[in-house]
């Protein structure tokens, strides 16, 4: 009995202290309008289609060559979207490629967000010399020509695989996030709650991660959603010109890249059109949700 009441009291305490979590607010925002709900459901559907679908496929089977079946058209020989030059089934490549491209987008985003957040928090919170040094490094990385250097690195790195690609793209990507979060932390630094926490003797780490971080949580969610789509774009773009995922790993970009051949673009639309449409749907729906969240976030900020 006593245990029960303690538990309950603790729960009430938490409810009083913690405002509705940023994630919950985001979901409320998504389901408020019909179009955003549709966009969100499309994202969930594509995630299920590619991630669950690829559970039933073996990557070695999908990328295996069947020369006799090369360039089968729409629906020929049981291939819904036909086959490519190596007789590989486009529908299966689409599932695996979709999963790979989304995975890369998610992983790059995760890495960039974590690094960017920590760097942004440290830089914005401490300011002074630390901020100066970090921001000069960020400046320098941002003036580097990203695409050419990425392409050279892709050809140079030994044992190149999907993970290396994630690291390479993130190497440039974190700077944008660091800059973005730094500016928010700068605006929080002189707020009363930070100053109060400082005078009561909280450690810097605690103020940064337990107090400032929750206050920018909604910014993080918005940024994550919008970055995922951008990062999928970078990976597919690189794969499109042939310097993204290695040839054995299907990607939406590689599939769309078939259109670089004038014969394919006109006579064999099944090679590249499904992947193009899928990528369009992915990017449009993720961005729609992201921008809806952003608008809501901006409106809330103005109210404060």
């Amino acid at each position, binding site marked *: 009995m006593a245990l029960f009441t303690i538990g309950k009291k603790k729960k009430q305490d938490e409810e009083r202290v913690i405002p509705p979590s940023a994630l919950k607010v985001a979901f409320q925002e998504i389901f408020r309008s019909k179009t955003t709900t549709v966009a969100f459901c499309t994202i969930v559907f594509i995630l299920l289609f590619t991630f669950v679908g690829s559970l039933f496929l073996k990557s070695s089977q999908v990328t295996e060559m069947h020369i006799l079946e090369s360039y089968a058209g729409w629906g020929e020989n049981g291939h819904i979207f036909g086959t490519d030059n190596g007789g590989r089934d486009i529908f299966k490549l689409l599932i695996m490629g979709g999963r790979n491209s989304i995975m890369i987008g998610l992983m790059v985003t995760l890495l960039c967000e974590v690094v960017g957040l920590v760097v942004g928090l440290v830089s914005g919170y401490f300011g002074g010399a630390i901020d100066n040094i970090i921001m000069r490094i960020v400046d*320098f990385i941002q*003036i*580097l*020509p990203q*695409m*050419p*250097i990425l*392409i*050279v*690195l892709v*050809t*140079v790195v030994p044992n190149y695989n999907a993970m290396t690609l994630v690291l390479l793209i993130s190497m440039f990507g974190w700077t944008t996030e660091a800059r973005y979060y730094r500016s928010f932390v700068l605006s929080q630094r002189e707020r009363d709650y930070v100053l109060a926490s400082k005078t009561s003797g909280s450690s810097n780490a605690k103020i940064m991660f337990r107090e400032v971080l929750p206050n920018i949580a909604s910014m993080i969610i918005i940024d994550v959603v919008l970055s995922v*789509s951008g990062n*999928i*774009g970078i990976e*597919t*773009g690189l794969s*499109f*010109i042939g*310097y993204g995922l290695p040839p054995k790993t299907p990607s939406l970009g590689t599939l*769309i890249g078939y*259109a*670089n051949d*004038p014969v394919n*673009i*006109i006579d064999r639309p099944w090679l*590249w059109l499904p992947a*193009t449409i899928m*990528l*369009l749907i992915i*990017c*449009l729906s*993720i*961005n*729609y949700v992201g*921008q809806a969240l952003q608008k809501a976030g901006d409106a809330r900020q103005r109210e404060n």
Partner: protein
Amino acid sequence: MWKTILKRVLIMIPQLILLSMIVFILAKMMPGDPFTGLINPNSSQATINHLKHVYGLDDPVPVQYLRWVKNLLHGDFGQSYIQHVSVSSLIADRAQNTFWLSLLSTLLLYGIAIPMGIAAGKHEGEWQDRAISIFNYVTYAIPGFVFYLLGLWLFGFTLGWFPISGTVSANASGFWGVFWSRLDHMILPAILYAIIATTGTVQYLRTGIIDNKVEDYVKTARSKGVPEKVVFNKHILRNSFLPIAAFLGNTITGLLGGSMIIETVFSFPGMGKLFLDSIAQRDYTTLTALIMIYGTLTLLGNLLSDIIMSLVDPRIRVK
């Protein structure tokens, strides 16, 4: 004023040195040696060593770096081992094509984006604004290469309105013939390029107009009886152009540097295409020169943006 610019130019020096080091290290990291195309299996080790010696590739790395920088400063990018011509002449040809494409794209970009931004800001919340915000959302969300590809497929291949590749037709003759043929080849990539790049400009202009509309100085002008047209054109618009002016430099270099994908899609023989060809052939003198040029252009773009900003906005100079 001049102090700000001088300070800004001085910052560029260490950046350029660092950039050149990174480019050089990248070049050294590239696999194989540049003679892969020249030698056959019968070439003896002695021949290869001789070639390396002739091109100075057996010197210590710092010596090679300093020699490379010295040559760069003299405008000598070295010889392309693959194409057997000087890299400068190789790039000059292609850079011209990219330059004209970027120029046309920039003109179209501002030609499209500025009226749209003004319309959206002026009619905030009305149908014009809503239509433009949908346009903005779509152009922002779609990855560039998908947009170019669909454009090429629809207008180039299916409808046949525009040429699908190259810069000039073989049978074009005379100054105007060549001129029109060039323009004809550039118009589709330039329009697609411009449309994808409009988002930022439209957005900044729109927000600028909306924010400035309610500022005190605008209210003062109105209450003094300044005609609405003058208030809008002279007061609101001028201030809303500030952020766009600031991004001018970056926009131009962004177009120059981001040409790789559009040139691939349209088989347009510009710098971006040259870069991709060189990497496929491991032509690394050309590659290093191109990365160096891209990097320098980005630096110059930033410099240009900062200078424009300090020209149009006196508050920055005071700092």
